[in-house]
């Protein structure tokens, strides 16, 4: 228990993603701890979300609560499985230098943050569940909390991706530059070349550290201004492309997540329907959202 709490603390402090390594263009993530903590946080929010199903006047069911508790982590896992392959393939096509395990680590870290924020609003969900009888309101409240936690985690992921992409570009571009010089100067030894590569990496980290006092680069222009025209020309395009892919992925992730939530329903538990593990295949997330909005003031 103490270990889980320590891991949760590390997660929300951002310590599961090694920041200095990110500055060097590497992703070091404590994947096992992240998955364990993510599962626990998902289960925690599931309990809060499923509280309504266990308390509703008709068809109250503890089994419904258990089902929701299990479905929340499942929702995140399935959304991840659906969206991750396309993100990786398209970002690689657009020039991303992130390796498979690096993309995986970044996204799982982001999902962990998402689940942490979601679990933290659990008491508010429980509060409204206990003192309101409006099912549409609870639906909308949950949609809002999922969106809010998603946006916060995406914001953090976005900064990490930017930081990583730039660090990799600096390292790669400067390393090429060093190699070109070495081809001209044949007398230099391979050992010295390695030393200089190390120096370039250290310099890149130092530049990033200077530009980002306790943070990743906020604006590309500030960052680019400090770099030589040669490097600026060489690196502008892939980062922009990657940013576009990332933005597109965020939208796809949101849509898939929302629809996955619809497929996995009931999550809250419609008051006049008995418990079922899954509802029949019909409609979409937007249908449900529209219905909740229409019924809210009826």
């Amino acid at each position, binding site marked *: 228990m103490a270990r889980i709490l320590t891991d949760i*603390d590390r997660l*929300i*402090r*951002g310590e599961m993603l090694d920041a200095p390594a990110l500055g060097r263009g590497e992703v070091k993530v404590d994947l096992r701890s992240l998955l364990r903590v993510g599962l626990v946080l998902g289960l925690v929010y599931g309990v809060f979300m499923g509280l309504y199903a266990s308390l509703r006047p008709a068809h109250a069911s503890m089994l419904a609560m258990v089902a929701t508790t299990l479905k929340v982590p499942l929702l995140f896992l399935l959304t991840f499985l659906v969206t991750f392959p396309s993100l990786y393939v398209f970002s690689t096509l657009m020039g991303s230098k992130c390796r498979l395990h690096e993309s995986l680590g970044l996204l799982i870290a982001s999902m962990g*943050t998402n689940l*942490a*924020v979601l*679990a*933290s*609003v*659990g*008491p*508010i969900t429980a*509060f*409204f569940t*206990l*003192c*309101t*009888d*409006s099912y*549409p*309101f609870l639906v909308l409240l949950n949609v809002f909390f999922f969106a809010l936690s998603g946006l*916060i*985690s995406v914001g*953090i992921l976005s900064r990490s991706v930017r930081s990583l992409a730039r660090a990799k570009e600096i390292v790669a571009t400067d390393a090429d530059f060093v190699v070109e010089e070495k081809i001209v100067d044949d007398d230099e030894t391979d050992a010295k070349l390695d030393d200089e590569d190390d120096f370039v990496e250290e310099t890149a980290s130092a530049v990033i550290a200077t530009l980002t006092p*306790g*943070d990743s680069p906020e604006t590309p222009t500030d960052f680019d201004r400090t770099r030589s025209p040669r490097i600026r020309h060489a690196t502008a395009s892939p980062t922009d492309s990657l940013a576009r892919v990332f933005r597109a992925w965020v939208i796809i992730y949101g849509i898939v997540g929302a629809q996955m939530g619809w497929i996995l329903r009931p999550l809250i538990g419609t008051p006049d329907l008995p418990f079922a593990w899954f509802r029949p295949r019909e409609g979409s997330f937007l249908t449900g959202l529209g219905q909740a909005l229409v019924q*809210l*003031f009826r």
Partner: protein
Amino acid sequence: MRVLLEVDDLLRSSRAHAIGRGLVPVPVLATVLCSAGFLYGLAMGSFNGQIQQMLYSGLKVPLLLLVATLVCLPSFFVLNSVLGLRDDFSAALRGVFAAQATLAVVLAATSPWPLLLYGSTTDYRLALNFNGLPFLLGALAAQIVLARHYRPLIARNRRQHLALWTWIFLYILVAMQSAWAMRPFVGDPSLEPQFFRDDAWSNGFVEIGRDLLRLGGLDRR
């Protein structure tokens, strides 16, 4: 006397209640909040002159402020951590708690106002609506104190803006529903004094929305 000195420091943000990091003076602030809230609750519940309703309201006003704060606190903590603001969390918490205590102090300071009104009218709706004014003023005063505590934090890190506004949003969301669930505070003269209404578990936002739709002529039921 000691409480009054603490209130003075609280309003000036000085000594134990100074802006910045450090221990949050929770016992002092809780005492101020409970006693000041109780005082206003007594006055608010005196519309019918029934001791029972006065005591109920006296208990419920501090309870309302405490519940709204405590329910939102876990998400506030996690949000601060996730945004990388954990080092300044104690300073933010001092601001949040000081703001709550200030709200209660303003309510206590304005507690003679409803008494004056109750002495002048028997109109329940007017009494009900009038009590919104001290709460509004209290909320504004709380905002001033919160902004005072947050100013140096925001100067250090712009992300404090997001944490602050998220707190304000979540707090309003929970406080409004708490106030709805905990009613009656004034006490309808046609009903017996109650701690909670029979329909306490309806949704305040939905009820207000329906009222607004009715007022706008969009709902004719």
